């Protein structure tokens, strides 16, 4: 995984999370090892985030793959696989 590419994606991902999520939190502290569970999404907010992530990166993710991910780093990996 390209370290520079990863950090650029992480910055964009944080921006999406900041805009999409209802909950207030320190999104700048989100790191690749941050677990998805700790971000506090529910079955609705996860959909908002997925929609906005796809729009931000201009790609279509396979939803079943996304729900298998456990960390932000795995999401970044998926985005890179799809050409982000």
């Amino acid at each position, binding site marked *: 995984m390209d370290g520079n590419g990863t950090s650029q994606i992480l910055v964009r991902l944080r921006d999406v999370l900041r805009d999409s999520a*209802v909950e207030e939190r320190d999104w700048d502290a989100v790191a690749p090892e941050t677990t998805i569970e700790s971000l506090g*999404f*529910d*079955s*609705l*907010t*996860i*959909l*908002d985030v*997925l*929609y*906005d992530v*796809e*729009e931000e990166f201009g790609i279509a993710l396979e*939803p*079943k793959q*996304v*729900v298998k991910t456990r960390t932000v780093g795995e999401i970044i990996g998926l985005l890179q696989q799809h050409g982000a």
Partner: protein
Amino acid sequence: MAFHLRVIHLLEYWAARLLLLGVDLLPPAAASRWAGWLGSLWWTADRPRRRVAISNILRAGVAGDPAAARAIGRAAARHMGTVLVESLKSALVLDDPDRVRVRIPDDVQAVLEDPDQGLIVVSGHFGNWELAGQWLSRYKPVAGISRPMNNPRVQELALSRRPRHGFRMIPKYDPDPGRFIKLLGDGEILALLVDQHARQGLDVPFFGHPAKTHTTAAMLHLVTRAPLCFATCRRAAPMTFELTLSPLIERQRSGERNADVEAILLALNGLLEEAIRRDPDQYLWGHRRWRRRTE
């Protein structure tokens, strides 16, 4: 739990047991009449809910004056009583092909017959929505999203009495945020009712008045690309129904999330309004659908 609440829950539980005993002992037609009478009794006794229902009926414009609204409201209360009996005795309906007339467009039929494709089916508290879910479970497993009842004893009783087949209820709230996505990915049907006040929903006109509307069905369609349709199951005669599914509702993403969701919800609300206008006495009017922002 406070003592008085425990007592109320216990009383409700035994009232429900008594109702079920009546349903079990009586033949279907008599049980339906009995439950209809109980619905009518509830209409008389529950003044606050009655006022909400009359106000809703007038606001929706399906009755011209309060007297007509009261008549519709009472008929709808009787209807809700019979819905309970029909759901408990659903095997009588589901096993008899003459009891359910079905209209399914070709595009929806193709999805139902494809084991790999999930389907989002939306309805409202109209006709007998639960029978619709049970009937569709002959194609694929159906998961109906429901809010748990306030009384856990009655909830447990209701769940133990629901016919299983391929139909199951799943709670609205769960720690796993991806469970709806997984379910659709596994080729199941996800059934949702979209006509309850949604505190964090989107303001979408319902009978011309803004109503906070749940966005889950629309968002699931937009994100998972799972097909989406609207269903109604209207009572045509006692223990006889017309199950109608709309053609697939499709929306290409525009990049504007709220605009996409609103377009889908407008279509869904429009289809529900159409069904209600035809049979206003088969709708659950007692819910405070047009709550003010602060409520």
